């Protein structure tokens, strides 16, 4: 079907601009960005100045398949993604069992096929069982479609194993995603060390644990020449090391979760376990530094780190509660907080949420140019609402934004020119 978006504000992250125009989508691609009138038989969507942007490409979505389908299935995650304007989910291998063999990868690929209305790609573990001892079959899994290799929040502590994984990955051009967190300093920690954690009596970790681990990985990247992405950089002290690595020509990029851009350690309040994340929420100074780093482009990618946890995993004393938060549906409204606060422009946001992640993984999407794949999100950046977590489409409702005032609603989501979400029927979706 041919679509005609009339009178729409177009976000182009490559040109770094927002302009008003009419957009034609035909045969799954963007056919024109400055059309005067709709082609014959086109479906005309009157946008009244609403915003059209490249759909979000989310690196690091956890789905509970295999192992925890009661927390999130491919179907429920897919519906949540579509409702959140996420057009490509890139899943994490921290499942049970881990996605560490071509057979498991094939299993999840088959399970996911046809279940999600949005694109889905999978990452594989870097070491077997994410145990940090033996390399996975990187070659076989690349052939089977793995887009990157990561042990998620497990750190490969043995530098010799890590060096060999990186060297081998380099020979195949595979992207390795690291989790910079020194395992010794961070052992047992559930908060960022400082006055707040101390008063709450919670074991804390110094922000230096992130810098140390990042420095270690940079040394190994310099040694091996591998392609590397840090899943989450959350501390100001890590930024000079990242800047230096990039200046030295290492093939390095970095991400940050939307929660670390919009929340800080004080949000833990009276032991609110929905705010328990990996790594823990940081100081306000760190949060501001991360937002500035996204604005400057030093941090390349914003991700959701969508981590579904059921009520039982969260209704526990803080130290015992499972970490992580769902975010597919709150990703865009939370990001728009930064836009409304004047901290980031829409092109800056979509550069980090759509363009950069797609390009880093070599995926289509993320672009607002003629001929580009029509993975798009149409949203009203100003529409205010109060989030009720029980309206979320995820099977798990562990969002830190429950009851929060947010601004910005997804109106429609398109994948290869096909509409996969319409807010008018949004509440009617059966809960899968």
């Amino acid at each position, binding site marked *: 079907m041919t679509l005609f978006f009339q009178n729409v504000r177009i976000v182009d992250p490559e040109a770094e601009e927002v302009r008003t125009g009419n957009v034609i989508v035909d045969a799954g691609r963007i056919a024109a960005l400055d059309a005067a009138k709709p082609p014959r038989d086109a479906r005309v969507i009157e946008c009244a100045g609403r915003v059209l942007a490249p759909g979000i490409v989310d690196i690091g979505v956890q789905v509970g398949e295999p192992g925890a389908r009661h927390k999130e299935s491919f179907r429920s995650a897919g519906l949540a993604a579509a409702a959140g304007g996420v057009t490509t989910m890139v899943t994490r291998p921290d499942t049970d069992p881990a996605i560490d063999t071509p057979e498991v990868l094939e299993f999840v690929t088959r399970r996911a096929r046809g279940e999600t209305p949005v694109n889905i790609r999978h990452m594989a573990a870097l070491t077997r069982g994410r145990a940090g001892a033996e390399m996975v079959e990187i070659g076989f899994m690349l052939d089977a479609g793995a887009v990157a290799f990561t042990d998620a929040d497990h750190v490969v502590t043995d530098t010799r194993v890590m060096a060999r994984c990186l060297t081998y990955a380099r020979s195949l051009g595979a992207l390795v995603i690291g989790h910079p967190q020194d395992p010794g300093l961070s052992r047992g920690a559930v908060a960022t060390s400082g006055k707040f954690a101390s008063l709450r009596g919670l074991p804390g970790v110094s922000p230096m644990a992130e810098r140390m681990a990042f420095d270690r990985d940079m040394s190994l990247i310099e040694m091996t020449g591998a392609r590397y992405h840090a899943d989450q950089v959350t501390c100001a002290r890590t930024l000079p090391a990242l800047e230096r690595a990039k200046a030295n020509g290492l093939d390095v990029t970095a991400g940050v979760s939307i929660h670390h851009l919009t929340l800080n350690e004080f949000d833990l309040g*009276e032991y609110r376990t929905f705010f328990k994340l990996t790594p823990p929420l940081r100081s306000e100074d760190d949060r501001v530094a991360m937002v500035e780093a996204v604005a400057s482009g030093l941090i390349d990618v914003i991700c959701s780190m969508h981590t579904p946890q059921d009520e039982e995993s969260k209704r526990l004393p803080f130290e015992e509660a499972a970490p992580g938060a769902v975010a597919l549906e709150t990703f865009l409204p939370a990001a728009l907080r930064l836009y409304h606060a004047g901290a980031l422009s829409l092109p800056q946001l979509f550069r980090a949420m759509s363009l950069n992640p797609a390009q880093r993984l070599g995926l289509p999407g993320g672009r607002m140019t003629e001929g580009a794949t029509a993975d798009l999100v149409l949203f009203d950046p100003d529409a205010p609402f109060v989030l009720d977590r029980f309206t979320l489409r995820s099977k798990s409702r562990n969002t830190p934004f429950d009851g929060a005032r947010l601004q910005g609603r997804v109106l429609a989501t398109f994948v290869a020119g096909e509409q996969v979400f319409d807010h008018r029927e949004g509440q009617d979706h059966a809960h899968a």
Partner: protein
Amino acid sequence: MSFRARHLLGIEHLAADEIVTLLDLADEYVAMNRGPDKHSNVLSGMTQINMFFEASTRTQASFELAGKRLGADVMNMSMASSSLKKGETLIDTALTLNAMRPDLLVVRHPNSGAVNLLAEKVNCAVLNAGDGRHEHPTQALLDALTIRRAKGRLHRLTVAICGDIAHSRVARSNLILLGKMENRVRLVGPPTLMPAGVADFGCEVFDDMRAGLEGADVVMMLRLQRERMDGAFIPSEREYYHRYGLDAEKLAHAAPDAIVMHPGPMNRGVEIDGTLADDINRSVIQEQVEMGVAVRMAAMELLAANLRRERAEAAHG
């Protein structure tokens, strides 16, 4: 003067006037406890459950005695050996107990914040008897009463809290209480046993014991919490005792009439010299135990009164 709190979860939630109200009432109970008739009926008809998820002898005994002297029906549950081992969650345990309609729930738990979580799920008054490294409010209140009776005031005193600050809920509660009552607080101990961000706490920090004790009116020793340590905090107990153990020589740096306190149980020869601990001219350690019963009686009476008022208001619509 009034007492508004619904639960006693931490000193953080108490205002200075509430602290004074509670201590004044506790003073009356000290007098009663010293007399021949140690019984009152202010909690008559009420049920008090002591839930201790962490082993404790003295605190549990103190709460039990306090409840019995006020006429409550007291039940002790040693949770370390109960259904939690069978996989029941803390919240389920709380809901089960709540269904038995207790009026006062006294809880100790090894995790910070666990008592706050529990208080959200029950409709009786909850008293925190120590949660992880977070707070131990009745300990701070009994320390405050001991200080007030020994020094004649609870303000403008210099109090040195010494030892394992990082693992101590007693230190946190005392730090907050003494701050609210406008005292000078010093934290003294090896830097490995200081909590992070301690410089922002509004107190002075010393790693030299003698400097930290200089002119102090109150010397509060803490127990070295060996069970909470996972290695490499201090090189050895004998070096710790040499540098941070309280003995007569180090105490000589404090004010001549300084009192010595310890929340117990003591590690004699680790953080405190045994002879000094027993010196009735300096040590108020036994008084602390006595004040503990009185302070817990006062806390339970005030919470029970608020609970009764709340229930009466609810009954009248």
